[in-house]
Structures are given as C-alpha cells and as structure tokens.
C-alpha cells in the first residue's frame, strides 16, 4: 500500500491504496464517486474518461500512483452547486444521453474539446469524441448536443 494524495473535484484527499490500482477503481471504490464508468477496461471505449491536470485520460489505464499530486476532475465535478453544466444541459435537451453509460465520458471529452477549440468543426468534434463509444444514440444526437453546447458556452455564464 502507498499513500496517494490528489485533488479530486477541487478537494484534496489522501488515500492508502496499492500503487498499481487503476485510477478508475480508486475513484469508484475509495472515493465513492461512481459517475465514472467502466466499459472495456482497456482504453478503447472512453467511458472511464476523466480530466487529469486538465488533460483527458482513460482512468482505466492510469496507475493510481501516477495520479499522486494530480488534479482530477470527474463528472461529479463538472456541475456547480447542483446546477448542471451547459454541456450536460445540452446532452439532456438534445437526447445525447440514453442509457447513460457513455455519457460521463462523452461530457468530459466534450469539455476537453471545447477548452482546446471553442468553435470546433464537425470533423474536430468527431475526432475529439472518437475515443468514446456509444451503443445507444447513433452519435448524431451527441454531435447535435455538442453543437448546441458550443453556442451556450459562448454566452455569459449567468444565463
């Protein structure tokens, strides 16, 4: 066991865990944040996506100790004070979420994409989300939701 200190959604926590435990399991089992999902467990599906120091990563492929000292943001950290983030709101309104398993990862990947390119083209949206698989929506509604989110995130935040 090793001590791992990280900042999770703005709060600093110290946990004892095996250093090679997957960050995904640390988040779900030790931090009890179950919004982050496991699909494939091998980097292919993106349902375990989180932001680590602002970068999109698959938490199933990150050894816990490599997250020592890192800032981690999960889906639980995306909404503020119980209010949905505009990206979440757009996924709801446009039917971008159905069963919901891929949704936390999709939203974090969208967040990362809009930080990089505030006005992405459809091609950039497709590339940005290519690592996130969805078995329900057929993707079109997800791309619609992202396009709506582009407009929303550009308006002043007090709307």
């Amino acid at each position: 066991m090793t001590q791992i200190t990280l900042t999770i959604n703005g709060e600093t926590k110290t946990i004892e865990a095996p250093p090679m435990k997957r960050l995904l399991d640390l988040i779900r089992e030790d931090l009890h944040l179950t919004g982050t999902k496991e699909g494939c467990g091998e980097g292919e599906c993106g349902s375990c996506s989180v932001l680590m120091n602002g970068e999109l990563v698959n938490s199933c492929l990150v050894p816990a100790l490599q997250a020592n000292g890192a800032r981690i943001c999960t889906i639980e950290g995306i909404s503020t004070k119980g209010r949905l983030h505009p990206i979440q709101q757009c996924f709801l309104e446009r039917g971008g979420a159905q069963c919901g398993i891929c949704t936390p990862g999709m939203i974090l990947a969208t967040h990362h994409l809009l930080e990089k390119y505030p006005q992405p083209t459809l091609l950039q949206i497709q590339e940005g989300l290519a690592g996130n698989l969805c078995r329900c929506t057929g993707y079109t509604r997800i791309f619609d939701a992202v396009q709506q989110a582009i407009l929303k995130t550009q308006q002043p935040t007090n709307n």
Partner: protein
Amino acid sequence: MRSNPSHYELTTPATLEAVLDILASDLGPYTPIAGGTELMVALGAGRLATRKLVSINHLQELRFIATTPETLTLGSGTTFTDLRKDPVIATDFSLLSQAASWTGSIANQNRGTLGGNIVNASPAADSLPALLAYEAELTLVSARATRTIPYAGFHLGYKKTILRPDELLHSITLKRDFREYAHYARKVGTRNAQAISKVAIAALARLKDGLIQDIRIGAASLRDRPIRLTATERVLQNQPITRETIAAARAALTSETQPIDDIRSTAKYRAAVAANLLEEFLHQLKP
C-alpha cells in the same frame, strides 16, 4: 482474467538518476512504465509478467522537444499530443505528426509516449515507419553509460530490442534534412481512426530532372518488426516514374516483405495493400 493490483510494486523516484540507479540495482528487474497505455492493458488482461515497476512518466528530463537549426531531439516521454502540437514537427517532420494523430483516441494521445511506442516494439506501431524514413538516432542511458545508435538497428525481432534491462530510452534525434522531400504517410486499418493498422507506410522522396534522386520507405506490419524497404528503394533509385518502374518496385516490395497472417489480416492482403500505397505515392511524385 484481470490481475490483482496488490501483487504489483510501483515506485516513482524523483529524478532520472534515481530511476537509473534502481534499474541498475540488484533489487530488480524493474520494468519502466511511461504512459501505461500498453502495460496497463496487459495488467487488465492478466498478462503483465513483471511484478516490479518504476514510473518514468513524471520525469521532466524525458519530456522535451529541443530544436537546433540542424536537428530535432525528442525526449522519450514526449506524448503523441506533444508531437501533434509542435510547429517544427508539423513543418519538417509531418510524417511523425500524422502518425501521432492516428495513434488511438485523444485520451490515448495525451498519455501514450513515443518512447513507449519504440520500446514496445510492435510490428504494427504507427510512429516507427516515420522514424525509419527519417533515419532517427536513439540515445540510450544507464547508470553506467550513454550510447547513441541508429534506430534502424534497435529492433531484433517480434517485440525484441537491443535495450538492456538497466537501460532507458532517453531521446530520439532527427536531422532536419527533409524540407525538399515529398512526404507520404498512410495507414490502412479496419476503420479510419482508432484501429491498429493492417499496413502503414511512411515515405520520403526527392526528384531531380524527372528521376528519383533519393527515396526512403518505412513500413509497419510487413515483417516481424517495422522495416525500411531497402530493396524496393534500390530498384527506384535514379529511375523515372514509368509503368515499368512501378511494376519493378511492386515486385521488389513483395519479395522483401514477409507479412504475418493474424487476427487483423492476411499476409497476401497486407503485401497487396502495401504495394498499392507505394504506387499511390509514386503517382503523386510524378512531375
């Protein structure tokens, strides 16, 4: 079945020097882990044989891009995202930025490193044909010594390299000699993005007075390791791009490759596709 993580040890020494000391000590053997996009998949599948790992992911000494007017040096910890962002790579070494953009998803590119791609030594690795075409040099370090070798001699066979257990890949150096070359890179996989390649080609060529003055062709998935198609290059040297030249090059390519049959494709298909890619490049080169 998934492995139990408590059976594994992982340490994160603060400096490169301390990592090299651990690799050289008799406490090992230790396996370095960088972005973990290979090793964590192996762990998940229950086939990570080594029990002791040392993290090199946090070492700033291995994550840098340094340019001089003549050379570009990439720390082994350079991620695919770093490669895609760099302006010098985009202009002088576009084969490498293209390969980086193919290497799995954005999340994979944010973690996976060029060093991991090289040392993992998969015959299908996407960035390696480009390194062969650019005649990259590798610098290997250990507590005892530093050595610089041509990348072309690094792979010994399927997932085998000349790296010693106490050594790390430190950096990759490329000469900035390719401004006047035509660049060609193409990967053929099951899908456009996010699929391991069935075949990939990275090639450079320079023409003079209608003749091929210099051509370099790197290829993935055509042998047990990434290869340079030297026999094919020889056939093309000093030739005009005619139907006969193309036929001779296709024949040479087929004779010097020994693609494998595997779950992703057949040898026959791979050789035929590689020859088609080469032909596409030659057509593009025509004055």
